[in-house]
């Protein structure tokens, strides 16, 4: 077990960072979020905030879509560490691509089934979303969902706040321990709703007797736990961008004829924030090296808070400019706040530690 980055991971990071710097700078992301979300059906992703062009490039040129898929199924057969590094970089860029939802969570749900769809996902030819609320957690996997299967194997009901559903070619629906795939437009609707996180909007998914293919068995809590563990790396990336951008700003911005970064109160706050980020890095790597329920709960409990704190400090220390739409810091604040809720709040993860770490509650 190591908490360091491997050379392979660092190379992957450099490749992803380079591509994102080129294709996904903050101004480009801001431009995308100007468009209004609208009501639409499955497979109509023209107006989405998600940048599917970028996603195709990430999948085709760097192969990020297949990282978690074994080579024999058409993937790269890489480990969690590689996926985590990609998420750090995507977090740093608040890149609107469905990596976490399709290449991590949907892929992980499919893996035990060996379904051929895995190959398509791995190559980026198709994108899938798990039809689970992004506000669900390993401890409450059914939150926000109300689904039933009729005798003819058709699916009805709804799931709220599904991340990346509006760009999914396939919806993967876990129900009573079984995973179903919904590929048809008929009987399924996906309605994007105005989302707090502009760069990873959520949608309402409704089925009305949709044809559902039984894919295999699915432990959805485990899938959400894996997602939560890796989300800690994305949160680390968000926090790092906020800290670094703020450091650059306070070195540059002068008030009272001094860089504001020379004022001791600012310096001490940034030192404390740095220390939080240092520990977020250790926590994220801990959840990669040992993806146990305990490590995941620790990483989420810590990193979700650090990402929010970093974004809030970034906004405050940018002063008025931080309150403007034209500065990208709000994209990070919204991402951070949304991921505080996603896949379990810090409080949910701390509550889980009561038994995982042997800190029992009042009797």
């Amino acid at each position, binding site marked *: 077990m190591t908490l360091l980055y491997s050379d392979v991971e660092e190379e992957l990071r450099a490749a992803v960072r380079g591509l994102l710097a080129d294709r996904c700078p903050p101004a480009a992301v801001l431009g995308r979020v100007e468009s*209004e979300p609208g009501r639409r059906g499955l497979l109509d992703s023209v107006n989405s905030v998600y940048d599917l062009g970028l996603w195709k490039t990430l999948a085709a040129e760097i192969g990020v879509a297949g990282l978690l898929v074994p080579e024999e199924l058409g993937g790269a057969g890489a480990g969690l560490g590689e996926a985590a590094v990609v998420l750090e970089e995507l977090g740093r860029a608040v890149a609107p691509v469905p990596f976490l939802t399709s290449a991590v969570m949907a892929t992980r749900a499919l893996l035990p089934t060996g379904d051929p769809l895995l190959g398509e996902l791995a190559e980026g030819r198709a994108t899938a979303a798990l039809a689970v609320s*992004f*506000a669900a957690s390993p401890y409450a996997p059914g*939150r926000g969902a109300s689904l039933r299967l009729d005798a003819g194997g058709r699916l009805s009901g709804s799931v709220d*706040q599904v*991340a990346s559903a509006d760009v999914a070619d396939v919806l993967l629906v876990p129900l009573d321990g079984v995973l179903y795939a919904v590929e048809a437009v008929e009987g399924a609707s996906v309605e994007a*709703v*105005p*989302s*707090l*996180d*502009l760069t990873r909007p*959520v949608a309402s998914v409704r089925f009305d007797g949709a044809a559902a293919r039984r894919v295999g068995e699915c432990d959805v809590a485990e899938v959400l736990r894996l997602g939560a563990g890796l989300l800690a790396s994305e949160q680390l990336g968000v926090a790092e961008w906020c800290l670094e951008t703020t450091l650059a700003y306070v070195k540059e911005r*002068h*008030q*009272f*004829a*001094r860089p*504001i970064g020379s*004022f001791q*109160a*600012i310096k001490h706050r940034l030192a404390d924030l740095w220390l939080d980020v240092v520990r977020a890095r250790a926590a994220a790597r801990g959840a990669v090296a040992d993806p146990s329920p305990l490590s995941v709960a620790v990483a989420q409990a810590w990193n979700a808070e650090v990402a*929010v704190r970093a974004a*809030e400090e970034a*906004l*405050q220390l940018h*002063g*008025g*400019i*931080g*309150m*403007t*739409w*034209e500065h990208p810091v*709000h994209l990070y*604040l*919204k991402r951070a*706040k*949304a991921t*505080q*809720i*996603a896949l379990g*709040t*810090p*409080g*949910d993860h*701390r*509550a889980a530690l009561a038994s995982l770490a042997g800190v029992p*509650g009042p009797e």
Partner: protein
Amino acid sequence: MNEAQIRERVAAFLAEHDPHGDRLEFLRARYDAGLAWVWFPEGHGGLGAPRELQQVVEHELSATPQLNTGVQAIGLGMAAPTILAFGTEEQKRRFLRPLWTGEEIWCQLFSEPGAGSDLATLGTRAVRDGDEWVVDGQKVWTSGAHHARWAILVARTDPGVPKHRGLTYFVCDMHAPGVEVRPLRQITGEAEFNEVFLTGVRLPDDLRLGEVGDGWRVAQTTLMNERVAIGGAPVRRGGGMVGAVLDAWREHPGLRSHDLHERLLSLWVEAEVTRLSGARLREQLAAGHPGPEGSGMKLSFARLNQELSGFDVEFRRELTYDDWTFRRSEDVDFYGRGPGYRYLRAKGNSIEGGTSEILRNIIAERVLGLPSEPRVDKDVPWKDLPR
């Protein structure tokens, strides 16, 4: 003048003017009767009476036409006291009456992109040209600029002296050629403020308020009045932002957890002691002993609003937002919108009207008497300052 006499005056005024008639006519008459702001001098909407008697007037006239305190806020709260303190008789006569009646709306042209916390470093230039001043520069965070007839403006008239000494205060004609107002979109999606570009704007010298070079001192009067206004409003126990959270909390028992409960109880306590401090502060003011506690109220409310609105979003597990539409809004509408809006808008509470960092400096130096930091800009001409 005492309370009984004021009551008599109001009664006499009401006997002569019908509050159900024309609104504007009524307000003009009220101004002329000295019942606008009783502590202002006679002839300028007042009676030279003690300020605390104003509440008697407000009480007696509460069923009559009221001012629009939203759109008139800057005029009433900031421009008027400054004009009163520094304006010429002619300026007071020209500006105060339509300001008070709302016939003319005011805005504030102080902050600039490069001059926020360090307002005195502002760079908008005003150059004298005969009987006129020619103004060039960019202002920001101007609310109501698109409605405003007039603005209070601080500009640099002498770049060759240290920053506090080269400023002059003007009334800016918002209808003058060269004034361009652009909405400034915020992280909430809406545009509550504006940027104002001033390009060769010509202002006659009789729009100058106070002496040339005395603008910093004049601006202090404006800013003091601003900070008293923010965060000084009374709230009832469990009201304000904590009330919004409590409503949701009581409505959704299924979303509660011990973690959230303990945090909410702590925030409730903080909100309550902050409310008590505000009540105590108002008692001190009423007793004629204003304490230094006022400096801290805005700081406390900013923190509370931010903590509570962040808690609210987390508690509801809402990943959605009510409306991102880009629109102009006149007011902060905390309670008519969703928790996401409150969370984002509250982030501005620790920036607008003096950042929390600046307020801590002020408390430390002016209230606690702690020594100031070494100043590197004290005796340096503005034009030579590093930026």
